[in-house]
Every structure is written in structure tokens, then in C-alpha cells.
């Protein structure tokens, strides 16, 4: 009996992963098919016409769906349908990463509203935003330069493109009638919904990781080398494809629910790089070399900036982030100002 139950559990996770993958591919097809219908909305009503606009748009979209990955996937779909330019897709992905940090912050805010009035509840969210913001700020000019010069143009992942062609052929009978029946924007919105659902299926398909039994089980107490935590964040997020899940894996290590900031800062830096793995898969499945180039540029820029920081200027950077965190959390007014800034910036970007 016990053996039969174990067998069922073993098949459940691959089944969820396969369903998630198929749903992900279908969602990309829907987004790509419906993206053309969004052009009037984006260009005429929202006035998303330049790189700053698309960054603000990606940022606000991520706030709206409380996740960065569906928005980044939408950015490559919009690029693939030629609704966005190269540079616009790049900045929209950057915006999606910044917006995604709000999720952690929002959890902290809910906690405070429920009566636990401690600023400390918000620190993980603020830290995520500060780290992502600082990396994106440095990666933006580098990425725009790489894309402008065409240094990474023409990239593709042939193995995934072949697979995508096969899957698309299989899904065409489903997408075709839907495309004929629904308007473009509805198709796109359905795609965003399905891609979000597919990420949930992926999350449930993840194997259970037990770090507490390893030499890393003392992360809440000991101060680990930044290189170790950076690589760990990179690797675990590559497996889980989500920064919040990747950080969540660390939580059971501490019975009290917290970690040393010395450990979590490089961990998030590493996680910020590999979190784009799902967007890279999306770009490859769309079969568009431009989409692959944009995502690879993003990954390369984030990796270069993060590695330079870790290897050459980690202590001053760590201190600057920690001081900024302390300033924001010191007074309610400071926190209110910070919240105002992170909501105003994307709006200002769209208005530019």
C-alpha cells in the first residue's frame, strides 16, 4: 500500500511539470497571437512609445499581477509580434523585475495592517527592491549599449525552437479557433492568465529541498562568504525559477523566520540573475532570435554587474544597501516616502 502511494507521488510532480510546460507554451502562443490587438491600446491610449514608457509599463504590470515572470514573458511575446522594439522589450523586462519585488513588500504591509506593527516585517521586501533597483540601474545603460551595437544579435536555442515548432503544430488547432473567436487583446490577457497559472503548476511540481541537513543549515546564524551565497541563490533560483520561492526555501532553516542580512544580500543578487531563466525559455519557445537576444542581454548585464560587485566592491555595496535599508525603516515618514517613490517612478516613466 505504502509503495503504491509513493509511486503515485513520484508521477504527480512530473505530470504537473509537463502540464505546466504545455500550458506555458499555449499561453505564449495566445500572447503572441493576441499581441497585435494590443497595439492601439499601448500606442494610442497608454502611449507606450519609447523605452522609458515600456519600463514603467512593465513595472506597473508586475504590480498588477503581483509577479514579474508573466510580465517578462509578455514582453518577449510583444517583441515577437513586433508591438515592442528591441530596446522597449529590454526595459519592460527590467521594469517587470522591479515590480516583482512589490510582492514581498505587500506581504509585509498586510502583516502590519493585521496589527503586527513592526517595521522589521517589511525589511525583506525593501531589501529586494533596493538590490534589484541598484542592479537594474547599472544594467540598463550596459544593456542598451549591447543591444544598440548588436553585440549579441542572432542568438537562438535550436533544441527548444525545434520542440516549440512541434508543440505549436500540436496546439494550432486550439489556438486557431480561439484567435478567430476572441479579439486580440482578450487573447493576450488569456495568455497572461494562463502563463501565471503555468508558473503555479511549476511551483507545485518542485521537489522538496532540505538544506537544513547540509553544511548550509546554519545560514540563519553564521555569516557565510558572499560568493557562496551568491552561487547558492543563482543555483536554487535556476531550479525554482522564482526569487520568492528560492528565498522561501531558506525559511525552514530558521525556526524564527529570519536570516542574516550578510547572507541574504548576495543570495538575492544571485537569484536576480537566474530568475530570468523562464523568460529565456519563453523567448526560445517563441522561436524569435530577437527575443532570445533581449533576454540573454539582460542575464549577461545582471551577471556582469553582480559579479563585479561581489568580486571588487562588495563591502561598500553591502554597507550602502544596509544603510539605505536602515534609513527607510527608521521612521514611518521615510518608509512612506520610499513607497511614494516606487509608485511614482513607473508612472513618471510612462508619462515621459
Amino acid at each position, binding site marked *: 500500500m505504502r509503495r503504491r502511494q509513493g509511486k503515485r507521488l513520484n508521477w504527480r510532480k512530473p505530470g504537473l511539470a509537463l502540464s505546466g510546460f504545455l500550458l506555458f507554451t499555449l499561453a505564449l502562443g495566445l500572447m503572441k497571437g493576441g499581441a497585435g490587438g494590443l497595439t492601439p491600446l499601448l500606442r494610442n491610449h497608454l502611449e507606450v512609445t519609447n523605452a522609458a514608457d515600456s519600463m514603467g509599463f512593465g513595472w506597473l504590470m508586475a504590480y498588477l499581477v503581483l509577479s514579474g515572470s508573466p510580465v517578462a514573458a509578455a514582453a518577449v511575446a510583444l517583441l515577437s509580434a513586433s508591438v515592442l522594439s528591441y530596446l522597449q522589450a529590454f526595459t519592460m523586462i527590467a521594469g517587470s523585475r522591479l515590480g516583482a519585488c512589490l510582492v514581498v513588500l505587500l506581504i509585509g504591509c498586510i502583516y502590519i495592517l493585521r496589527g503586527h506593527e513592526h517595521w522589521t516585517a517589511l525589511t525583506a521586501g525593501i531589501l529586494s527592491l533596493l538590490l534589484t533597483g541598484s542592479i537594474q540601474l547599472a544594467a540598463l545603460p550596459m544593456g542598451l549599449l549591447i543591444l544598440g551595437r548588436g553585440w549579441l544579435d542572432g542568438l537562438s536555442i535550436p533544441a527548444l525552437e525545434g520542440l516549440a515548432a512541434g508543440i505549436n503544430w500540436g496546439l494550432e488547432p486550439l489556438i486557431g479557433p480561439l484567435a478567430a473567436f476572441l479579439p486580440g487583446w482578450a487573447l493576450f490577457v488569456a495568455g497572461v492568465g494562463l502563463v501565471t497559472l503555468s508558473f503555479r503548476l511549476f511551483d507545485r511540481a518542485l521537489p522538496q529541498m532540505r538544506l537544513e541537513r547540509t553544511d548550509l543549515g546554519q545560514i540563519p546564524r553564521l555569516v557565510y562568504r558572499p560568493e557562496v551565497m551568491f552561487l547558492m541563490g543563482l543555483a536554487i533560483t535556476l531550479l525554482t525559477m522564482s526569487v520568492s520561492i528560492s528565498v522561501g526555501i531558506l525559511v525552514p532553516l530558521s525556526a524564527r*523566520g529570519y536570516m542574516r542580512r550578510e547572507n541574504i544580500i548576495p543570495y538575492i543578487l544571485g537569484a536576480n540573475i537566474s530568475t530570468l531563466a523562464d523568460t529565456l525559455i519563453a523567448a526560445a519557445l517563441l522561436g524569435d532570435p530577437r527575443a532570445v537576444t533581449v533576454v540573454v542581454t539582460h542575464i549577461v548585464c545582471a551577471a556582469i554587474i553582480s559579479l563585479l560587485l561581489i568580486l571588487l566592491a562588495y563591502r561598500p555595496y553591502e554597507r550602502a544597501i*544596509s544603510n539605505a535599508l536602515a534609513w527607510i525603516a527608521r521612521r514611518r515618514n521615510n518608509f512612506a516616502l520610499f513607497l511614494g517613490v516606487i509608485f511614482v517612478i513607473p508612472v513618471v516613466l510612462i508619462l515621459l
Partner: protein
Amino acid sequence: MKILLCTDGSSYTARALDLGVRVARKAASAVDILVVAKRDREEKARQMAEKAAADLETAGIPVAIHRRSGQMTEEVVLQAQAASYDLVIIGGRERRGVMRLLLGSPALRVTEHVPASVLVVKGQARDLKQVLVCSSGGPTSERTVRFAGRLARALGASVILLHVMSQLPLTKSAVLDDLEASAEELIRRGSPEGVHLGRMLDLLATEGRTGHAVIRRGLVRDEILAESREGQYDLIVIGAHITPGLNARLVEDLSAAILLTANRPVLVVR
């Protein structure tokens, strides 16, 4: 307590020898003085060692002078490995920037290879009246606090026990109260940090020294250095970094970081 003092005739080791004699007069049962001098400083080093020996003998402490030739760092390590000391007191010029990157730190090399506690004399080297003991809660804390307590009692110094909390909450179920409480509150509440600090204060008391605990929040290395500056401490005491196996490659060596960046004497307890 058996103490090893060292000199090479330089002004840097002169300061260490001077503080070493002041410490040894109050805390030592026996003292060895190691002289490692190049030819141009041989006479100066001899005079410094003999003056220190005379000072200590006046205080009734038996002294032996050992002479070695070679590199100061290597000879201190060899001497400390050959005999059994409780405390080695060294000074010397610290390398900076690229030179430290290429050649390493002499003080760090001594603390890593000497099987005894090492007091590295840096900065002004005033009388050790106020001692800051850093306690991580790890396995070395107990030994560190005991040694610091014994030394502080001999010197008549006051002791502050510092614990730095750099933790941030990651979930809504995090125990937030402990992240904001003072040392006294943590001890009263019986939180893991409070229990640890209470135990360390009891240990200090058994060594004949009372002290009080301080909690700081922020990056561990920065907060230790900030507390040492703000509190105008004369000595920072920290446990040696001993984590055998894979952990040694994974975990940050905080005692080395404090030793290299502090601008006052640092005692690394082994």
C-alpha cells in the same frame, strides 16, 4: 598565564612590547621575550628586550629572552609552536592594499598558525581599561568570554559583551519582537540570544568579572567596529575562526576581518 612578547627593534614592535609589559606585569606568571632582529636593528632590539625583562623582573615575574634570526612572522610562529603559551603579544607594521593582497597579513598569519591566543597591538595601545568582548553565540564564545574575563580581572578592566543581530525577517511568521529588543529584554524574555548572553555574563562572573551586554543591529563586522569606536574601547576580543571541514570554505572569517580593519588592539582567542 604564560606570555610571549616579541620585538625586532622597530618602533611598531616597541609599542607592542610596551603594552605587553604593562599587561604581563598584571596578568603573567612567566614571560618569554623573543628577539628577531636584522643586523642594523640588533642592538636596538637587544636593548628593548633587556629593558622589558628588567621591568618584569622588578615585578617578580620570571623572564627568559630567546633570540632567533629570520622573518619575524615565521619565527614567532615557530617559537609559539615550540613552547606552550597562553598569550602571544605582537605588533608590527601591517601591509595595505595590493601588498596585503599579494603577500598577506603578518598578523593574520600569526593568529592562524599560533596555537595560543594572540593580542595584536594596533593604534594607540593605551592601558587596557575597557574591553569589548564579541560573542557570536557559536561554539567559540564560551572560551572567548572565559579568557577575556580572566584577563580583564587581572587588568582591572571593565567588560562589555557585544552581540550583533544582523538578521532580517523573511516571513510573516518571523519572531519580530526579538529583532527589536534590548539585551536586557532579551535576557528577561529568555530568547535564544538572551539565554546565550545570560550564560556568557554568568561565565564572566565565575571568572571574577561582572559586565553588561549590548545588542547592536546591522552588519556584524561594521557594528563591531562602530561599537569599538563609539565606546572608545581599549581592546576588542573576538574568538578565532575555527570551523573545520567544508564549513571553513563556506563561512566568512570575521575574526580576520576585524583584525585587519580595527584601529585598536585586537585579541583573537583560541
